[in-house]
């Protein structure tokens, strides 16, 4: 009985080797860094992971779909900016506290629409999503600067930033939000027709077309989900800051993609999972947090991070190593 359990656990782990790594670094830092192994710190890690984590949820869909979205960092900034700014609009003052809701919806809508725009361009023009969203990464960041005139915006009440540091029971609200969203996306991906089609389109686009899946609109929906989560991450981050800055979210796309790929999603699409993505996000967050607590000098943090990324990959490869009987490619 326990043998079977053991077996299926091992199989699970070999499909998600990143979780093995998460456990290893967690144990390592628990011994190596003071203050690491504490509930408060675990909460910190979850909150810190929530930003990249939320982006990663949507981006995982986009990537399994065989596309990529490099503009998520810029969308994050734009959504945060819009939401924070709208709270202070005179014209909306009559709404009272409801302005917060309107502002949040507006921010999320911005993200969703921009994601949709990316998707639409990818669909209609047939230009590779990499280049479309690379352009959008620059362009949307430009929009942010045009909108903000290079200034940071500041949430007028601390209520907004208090949300960022509030808790539900023992867990920080943002961590709860992140985990709840992860569950929703996991279910979407593994249980719904849309989710299964996401794999189909990414795995073999031609086959999906031949089978009558409306690939274009399907991709647009996923880009919209990607944009939505980037925006949500922007809101989550801006509640932590009580402000938005035009430079926020820079280079997040690269780290998010790294987390997702570490989690086992293929850049070419067709495979991947939220469980893996979660592992990838946690791995990076724990590394960052642990090295802070260990006071690794900042120059060395970069080197360690780089080396570990590659090491994880090598480990993964080693675990999943094909037998000698496979063709040596």
């Amino acid at each position: 009985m326990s043998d079977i359990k053991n077996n299926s656990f091992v199989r699970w782990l070999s499909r998600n080797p990143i979780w093995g790594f998460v456990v290893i670094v967690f144990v390592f830092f628990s011994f190596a860094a003071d203050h690491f192994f504490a509930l408060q710190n675990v909460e910190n890690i979850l909150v810190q992971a929530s930003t990249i984590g939320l982006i990663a949820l949507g981006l995982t869909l986009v990537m399994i779909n065989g596309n990529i979205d490099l503009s998520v960092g810029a969308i994050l900034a734009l959504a945060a900016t819009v939401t924070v700014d709208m709270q202070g609009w005179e014209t909306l003052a009559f709404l009272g506290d409801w302005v917060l809701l309107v502002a949040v919806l507006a921010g999320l809508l911005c993200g969703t629409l921009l994601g949709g725009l990316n998707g639409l361009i990818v669909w209609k023009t047939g230009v590779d999503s990499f280049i479309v969203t690379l352009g959008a990464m620059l362009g949307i960041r430009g929009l942010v600067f045009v909108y903000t005139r290079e200034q940071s915006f500041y949430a007028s009440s601390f209520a907004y930033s208090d949300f960022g540091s509030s808790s539900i029971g023992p867990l920080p609200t943002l961590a709860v939000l992140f985990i709840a969203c992860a569950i929703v996306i996991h279910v979407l991906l593994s249980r719904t027709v849309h989710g299964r089609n996401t794999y189909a389109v990414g795995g073999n686009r031609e086959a999906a077309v031949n089978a009558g899946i409306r690939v274009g609109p399907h991709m647009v929906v996923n880009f919209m989900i990607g944009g939505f989560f980037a925006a949500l991450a922007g809101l989550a981050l801006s509640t932590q800051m009580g402000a938005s800055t035009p430079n926020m979210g820079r280079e997040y796309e690269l780290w998010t993609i790294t987390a997702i790929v570490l989690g086992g999603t293929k850049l070419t699409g067709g495979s991947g999972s939220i469980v893996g993505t979660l592992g990838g996000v946690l791995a990076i967050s724990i590394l960052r947090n642990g090295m802070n607590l260990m006071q690794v000098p900042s120059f060395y943090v970069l080197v360690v991070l780089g080396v570990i990324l590659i090491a994880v990959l090598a480990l993964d490869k080693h675990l999943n190593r094909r037998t000698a009987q496979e063709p040596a490619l």
Partner: protein
Amino acid sequence: MDKAATDGWSVRQILAQQGILIAFVLAMLVFGLFSDRFLAFDNIMAVLRQTGIVGVMAIGVTIVVIGGNLDLSVGSMLSMATVLVVDLHDRIGPGPAILIMFCAVLAAGAINGVLVGYLRLNSLIVTLGMLSALQGITLIYTDGKNVDIANQSDTWFAIFGRGDIAGIPTPIVMFFGVAVLGHVLLTRMPFGRKVYATGGNPRTAVYSGIRRGRIVFLTYLISAFTVGCSALILGSRVMGSQNNVGQGYELLVLSAVILGGTSLLGGSGNILKTVIGVLILGFIQNGLLLLGFPYYAQWLVTWVVIILTVWLDVASKRHSLWSPIA
């Protein structure tokens, strides 16, 4: 000539595939129309000089991408190389400094190559890891300080960024020189054919007796070599270097490569089009500056231009404006 005729390929069909070239000419004309300085000889020379840095690296990265991989480490490798060559210049003289710099970048490239080529690790993560690690190593090396060349007026090192060869600015000579070399390598030599095959279908390449690992390894060495060349231009042009001088170049370079129609999936691409991609990016930036666009409006315009350019390119290849996907 009549070979083409019997093949059933008309000149028109071949021309129709040059969407990117058409986009480039269009862009030049538009900017030329709005700014009288844009097409001035001096300006064109200045832009070509500037684009040399991105351009040379873009050649190397094109080769890596055709081979089916990515190289995001070029940005921080450029930082490392520039810092190294500038720092060593005053200590051991330009010649040895250049030598050591090339050894260093080739070593970094070799690590990429071994990890991606022989150990078959995912190139995105490997080179992103390298990006991070090399940035750290550069900072550790300089202890976080800027490095400068003390005596800037009489060192022959100045030739790479500031001088010219036979009246043509050196960065331009290097850019086009490396481009021609790369083009010849890819289209006229067995190595190039193997790179295309490896990127196009790695399994078939192996089944055809191509040593896939070695080919990928070599593409990374080439890419590292081009980074070294760019570092010469950059270091000499600035006569100093910040630790993060190459930051962001990886995406710039990749944009130029993709703008040139090289597919990220590997197996297709063309150096000459990459050159046009580099020039488009360089001239857009310059043109927008000359037109006095506010900085961030420049980004918005770049967005539109990039998408329109690539769109024109893919549309010309498939002979229809809209993608056939339902």
